[in-house]
């Protein structure tokens, strides 16, 4: 088990390193920062002085080393828009975004998994078809369209909820539902196929054949095995949720990381964009490592197998 954890953590660190390097490479490949920041009329000596002051005249690997050193020390530069450090600007938005994503994730799981399992147990029934049809519609309608439909119906026509902004719990309802439904649709489809896969296994037939009552076959044999497959998709769900947050926050003017990212991209506030990139990568990696560890605990077969994979 210790080796398994060590391999997981090493790979997580490697991924962080890849993301950090990705940001550096993309930033340098996008052109000379001196030319991008200074006006074209700046005299050549001033450009040279600027390059010297920011270490841009050093060889690329020295710049990379300095950059890594700064990142390790939590120095990600300053926001060009309000002059504070990028980390501060991003950090104050994190709890605001979590207020949306945490309930949305719970909604995902509470709707998606039961619906998918129910559909699998009633395979080919009308209920199954209806659930699957709703699920297909749910993940093909873009989240921003769904959000705008909700605004039109529940904020403009019925005036039950505010159409945007942050405030009391009423501001949360529409964005959380918008985020939750799309994810629930994906999860319902996946749970159904995971459950069907398990139900087709010989041990289910064996349990049925030796006279175990069907409800106990489902709860005792099918569900635990389907749960292992479902664990794998939770990482994917979190990624989806982060991408969905960017759009949904924009629709509902929710002042979280997503809106910040959109504004920063539009104004090319690179330090903030880079900081958000790292925060998202860290969130994804934490999720995936946690899932991997839980996975190893739930299913002892995987410990040896997966740690030896590469």
């Amino acid at each position, binding site marked *: 088990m210790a080796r398994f954890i060590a391999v997981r953590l090493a790979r997580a660190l490697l*991924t962080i390193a890849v993301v950090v390097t990705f940001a550096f490479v993309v930033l340098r490949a996008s052109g000379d920062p001196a030319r991008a920041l200074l006006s074209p009329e700046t005299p050549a000596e001033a450009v040279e002085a600027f390059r010297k002051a920011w270490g841009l005249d050093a060889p690329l690997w020295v710049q990379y080393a300095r950059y890594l050193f700064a990142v390790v020390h939590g120095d990600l530069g300053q926001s060009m828009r309000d002059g504070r450090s990028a980390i501060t600007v991003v950090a104050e938005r994190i709890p605001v975004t979590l207020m949306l994503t945490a309930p949305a994730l719970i909604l995902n799981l509470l709707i998606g998994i039961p619906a998918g399992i129910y559909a699998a147990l009633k395979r*080919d029934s009308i209920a199954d*078809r209806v659930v699957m049809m709703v699920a297909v519609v749910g993940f093909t309608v*873009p989240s921003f*369209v769904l959000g705008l439909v909700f605004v039109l119906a529940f904020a403009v026509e019925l005036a039950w909820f505010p159409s945007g902004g942050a405030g009391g719990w009423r501001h949360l309802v529409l964005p959380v539902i918008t985020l939750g439904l799309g994810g629930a649709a994906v999860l319902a489809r996946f749970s159904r196929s995971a459950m069907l896969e398990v139900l087709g296994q010989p041990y289910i037939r064996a349990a049925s054949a030796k006279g175990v009552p069907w409800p106990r076959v489902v709860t005792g044999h099918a569900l635990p095995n389907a749960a292992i497959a479902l664990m794998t998709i939770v990482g994917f769900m979190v990624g989806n949720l982060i991408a969905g947050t*960017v759009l949904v926050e924009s629709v509902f003017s929710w002042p979280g990381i997503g809106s910040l990212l959109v504004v920063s991209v539009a104004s090319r506030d690179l330090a903030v964009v880079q900081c958000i*990139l790292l925060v998202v990568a860290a969130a994804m990696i934490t999720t*995936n490592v946690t899932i991997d560890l839980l996975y190893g605990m739930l299913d002892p077969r995987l410990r040896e197998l997966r740690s030896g994979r590469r």
Partner: protein
Amino acid sequence: MSSISAGRVLPSSKMIRLRWWREGAIGIAVAWLGLMLLVVIFADRLAPYDYAALDLHHRLAAPLGLGGTIAHPFGSDELGRDVLSRLAISIRISLLIAFGATLIGAVLGITLGILAAHFRGWVEQVILGCVDFQASMPFLVLALAVLAFFGNSLLLFVGLIGLHGWERYARVTRALAMSANEQAYVIAVRQLGARPWRVYLRHIMPNIASTLIVTMTLAFPDIILLESGLSFLGLGVQPPLTSLGNMVGYGRDYLTRAPWILVFPSLVISLTTLSISLVGDWLRDRIDKTLS
């Protein structure tokens, strides 16, 4: 997988009715996609006006049936531009971008998948590492970061969207090519002295093409959603060019006064992704059940 294990078996008449229902839905989906294809080809002839032509006397005109006139059957927007004309051109641009991006992703992914299957060793490990990286990051965020660093141009935008989903093709192609490499026909061709590129292009590709086509069909809606999402945020297709996501993004400011500006493009996006998903699922069930 027997249906007994799932608890109950449906009477056959019910099964047949369900199948009819599904085939009917597929028929409608195919018809819708055919219509979209016609719009892509004949967009400029279908559009009654130039998509950028202003008509300031008829700003925010209502569509036909809501008090509007035949002059602007789908209404007009805040600058008096004809919504029907903009819709037709938007459909053309959005779908062409999606086609182009899908092709880029497929060619890149298939090439890398074949390279991984052919060379194995460290080449395969590097490619698999990239696959893991791509699969673990939400692509929308990566795409936004690249747009922030490089600024926006149509060419970059199409290429960027093309990068979305390449890892699916790479994974599928690698697995299929590796198992094909073990099969007798490939070994035979190889023994006859065929060069690797000939083996992959002439012999293995035709055998795995059907699976790859299904993968492409299943990836296509994601591409449309990504493009329209970025354009909706104002960070994708830039004006004066228009796209479906763009129309929704601009129409949002007139949500209460002129909802038709965004209703029509929203409907087109949703119906198109829905139709392709239905057709993709159906193809998968027909051709290759192992994909999911």
